[in-house]
């Protein structure tokens, strides 16, 4: 039954027949050229905890946003207790009984706990004014039911993330939620807090609430959940009863895809060491990071979102400070906190957020391409427009940027072409090392392989490449070596031959990392 791509074919969990409280079938959602969700299918029963797992970019967040009423699916069938629903906004989804708790709750810091729970629907007293005492009483009652001691009259500011989540759950209960969606709730919690959260979740399940639990941590998924749904590339893959399945099988389903055909990696000659990082630490962010990248080599930094990969790259490039350690580029120490020095030393950085970090969206293609090498177009100290235009033209042509004109704002280009403009901008500086953070995020499948081909070409030309990617196939298909990070530390150094989905996923998720 596991491979049926259809929720209707998935029977309920065996012995005790249950009522399906929420079902989403074949939901699709696209944003311009980007397909965020191709087949979102999930079915949640009353009184079960249902896990949703998948790699980053598998479409989990889009699915959650559809449930929450933030996105409208382009197609598909969405039912609550058998009735078709079409949510136009978050309020309608909430009113229908779906509550979503995000990783970082968004409480109003200056309001009290009770005010946060009853915001917008405060209980009124006889005078038609808000009755604070009634609000406090109801909030205290909610916390008593949840078995957690939180003072309803304290302000929300200063509460731990765990307590804030409990308050969100209390809010959900007070709204009489039939379905509770928890999007990576444990990412920022300590062990004790996780236990308390799970106790609350189990209590709610036993009272008949359907819970959708999204997590990257398999131990938690297997500990807490009754059933598991796997997604990959925006598609439903399978639903299993937890008792019938192993971690290995789930991992295989999450990453299973023919990697070789997607990533045309060319063999490059590996040369001298370009970047050498030794014992780099930044309190609370990452610790004791050491690695090298050589000319012509593609080194991937793999791991889950939040493992500290981007932070390491930002520190290397001089955007953020670090506490200790050294960075050398071609044998010379690199100045900390100085991106200009990093660029001068031959570093380039293609950041993960193109719209905010990689490009100046309202500037033209040409201006963006030449933004990094402003100094190179000077004639007697002033910018020479003709030189600038020629360089922009040349680089957009080399990378085959498809745009109506050099003068069009980059915001009018598709994601893939925007990424090419970012690459062009850095290639124009003739870099020795290029840091590429999530090279294909938000890019459609066709253009993805074009970007991969480009990166591979750069390595062949002798540029050292440090690639951060949350997409396992991309990591395994492109990298000569894979460094896996988890919770701010490098937990595995894997050679191309040793890197496979299981070893990378294992090092990224479980606490006992494999080292070479």
């Amino acid at each position: 039954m596991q491979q049926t791509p259809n929720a209707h074919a998935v029977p309920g969990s065996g012995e005790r027949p249950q009522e399906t409280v929420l079902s989403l079938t074949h939901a699709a959602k696209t944003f311009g050229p980007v397909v965020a969700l191709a087949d979102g299918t999930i079915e949640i029963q009353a009184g079960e905890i249902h896990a949703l797992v998948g790699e980053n970019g598998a479409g989990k967040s889009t699915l959650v946003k559809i449930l929450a009423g933030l996105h409208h699916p382009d197609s598909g069938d969405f039912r609550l207790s058998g009735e078709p629903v079409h949510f136009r906004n978050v309020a309608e989804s909430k009113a229908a009984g779906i509550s979503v708790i995000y990783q970082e709750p968004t409480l109003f810091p200056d309001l009290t706990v009770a005010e946060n729970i009853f915001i917008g629907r405060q209980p009124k007293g006889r005078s038609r004014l808000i009755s604070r005492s009634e609000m406090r009483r109801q909030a205290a009652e909610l916390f008593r039911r949840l078995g957690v001691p939180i003072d309803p009259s304290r302000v929300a500011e200063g509460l731990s993330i765990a307590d804030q989540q409990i308050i969100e759950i209390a809010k959900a209960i007070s709204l009489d939620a039939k379905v509770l969606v928890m999007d990576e709730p444990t990412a920022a919690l300590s062990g004790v807090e996780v236990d308390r959260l799970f106790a609350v979740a189990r209590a709610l399940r036993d009272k008949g609430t359907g819970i959708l639990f999204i997590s990257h941590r398999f131990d938690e998924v297997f500990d807490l959940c009754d059933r598991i749904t796997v997604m990959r590339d925006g598609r439903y893959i399978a639903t299993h009863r937890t008792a019938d399945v192993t971690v290995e099988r789930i991992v295989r389903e999450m990453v299973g895809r023919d990697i070789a055909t997607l990533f045309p990696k060319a063999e490059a000659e590996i040369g001298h060491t370009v970047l050498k990082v030794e014992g780099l630490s930044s309190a609370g962010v990452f610790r004791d990071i050491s690695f090298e990248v050589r000319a012509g080599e593609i080194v991937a930094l793999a791991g889950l979102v939040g493992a500290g990969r981007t932070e390491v790259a930002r520190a290397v490039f001089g955007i953020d400070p670090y506490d200790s350690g050294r960075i050398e580029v071609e044998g010379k120490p690199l100045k900390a906190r100085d991106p200009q020095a990093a660029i001068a030393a031959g570093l380039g950085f293609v950041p993960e957020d193109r719209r905010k970090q990689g490009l100046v969206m309202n500037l033209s293609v040409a201006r963006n391409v030449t933004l990094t090498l402003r100094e190179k177009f000077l004639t007697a100290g002033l910018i020479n427009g003709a030189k600038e235009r020629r360089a922009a033209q040349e680089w957009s042509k080399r990378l085959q940027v498809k745009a109506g004109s050099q003068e069009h704002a980059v915001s009018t280009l598709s994601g893939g072409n925007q990424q090419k403009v970012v690459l062009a901008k850095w290639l124009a500086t003739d870099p020795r090392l290029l840091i590429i953070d999530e090279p294909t995020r938000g890019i459609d499948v066709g253009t993805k392989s074009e970007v991969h081909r480009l990166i591979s070409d750069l390595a062949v030309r002798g540029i050292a490449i440090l690639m951060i990617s949350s997409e396992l196939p991309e990591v395994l298909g492109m990298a000569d070596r894979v460094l896996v990070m988890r919770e701010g530390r490098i937990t595995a150094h894997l050679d191309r031959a040793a890197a496979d989905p299981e070893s990378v996923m294992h090092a990224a998720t479980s606490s006992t990392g494999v080292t070479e």
Partner: protein
Amino acid sequence: MSETTTPRSKPAPAAAVADSTKPLADEPKGRTGAARILASRDAITIYALLAFLVYAAITIPRFASPVTTGFLLLDVIPVLLIAMPMTLIIITGEIDLSVASTAGLTSALMGVLWAGGMDIWLVLAICLLAGTAAGMFNGFLIAVLGLPSLAVTIGTLALFRGLALVVIGDNAVANFPKELTAFFTSKLGGTGIPTVMIGVVLVMLFFGILLHFTPFGRGLYAMGYSKEAATFVGIKVARSKFWLYVASGVVASLAGIYWTLRYTSARSDNASGLELAVIAAVLLGGVSIFGGKGTIPGVIAGVLLIGTLNYALRLGRVSDVVLITVTGLLLIASVVAPSIGSGIKEWRHTRRVRRSFSRDTGGGSTAPHRVQKTDRTKEKENNDV
């Protein structure tokens, strides 16, 4: 999106995509560079200025004369000066409200020092230093400590004006050297153009070249749109901002000196309220209050347009109340007009998409409202994916 954009490639097998790429054409399609410049936001301000000048010259007697040119320019010089650094500051997404108070403080200092018997050139040097210090103070709070410029400069607006009062009190100093005050109102031959205009033109050239032809200026646009994107290309955001505020302080003190000598009066309330006139003119000149957009030629046209309008209405014996109202309406119109323009564009785009949609699906609708989404909202949603 307009029809000039090339269609995006459809997802296809990897090899096919690699081969079917259509690289950027050598000759830009659609609107050429020249056409783009001629239709840009600041060009429109320049047209408006020219149109109004022609209209005023024809309809208002005595308008087209060297006397008009002289008085008009003498009146707009303080705004014109301060608008230059202000343009750069607003392009980076910040603001400086303390400029008029800096000018007032300079004027007060000038009066007291001159009345105290100091050499006039030393007085002028100290005044410029005071402006520099005022700018450094703003720059330190905003660029180094990272405080919001709106709050900081509202504070220094009051602070510098207060200091001016402390320095000179309710007194006024008027007995400045005759040859100096005469120089400040003198004209270049029979043209009616004030001699000091030469200096003002130099300031305009300085800021125009700085903004449009130097790497520093390029960096300001990037900063105004996204500080992070600017940091990622090695632009020193804090340092650039600090020097902009210093420049603003220096130019404000120049305006204060001009004001004092042009009206031969050093008082604590000189140039009071000028900051709003400057900002209004800058915005009218096509600079975006959100940063990232604007040009010096546009701003010069904006300043001259407001100045000419005021002068013409005054010649026509229109009361000050009407003057202020007209200026206000003009400013609102200039801010609203681009939104109306893009609104119309979106509406036309929506209609086109809707028409092609109903053609494709034979009018059937799973949910047509989704397809009508404009590119801008799509972009926003892409961010959330």
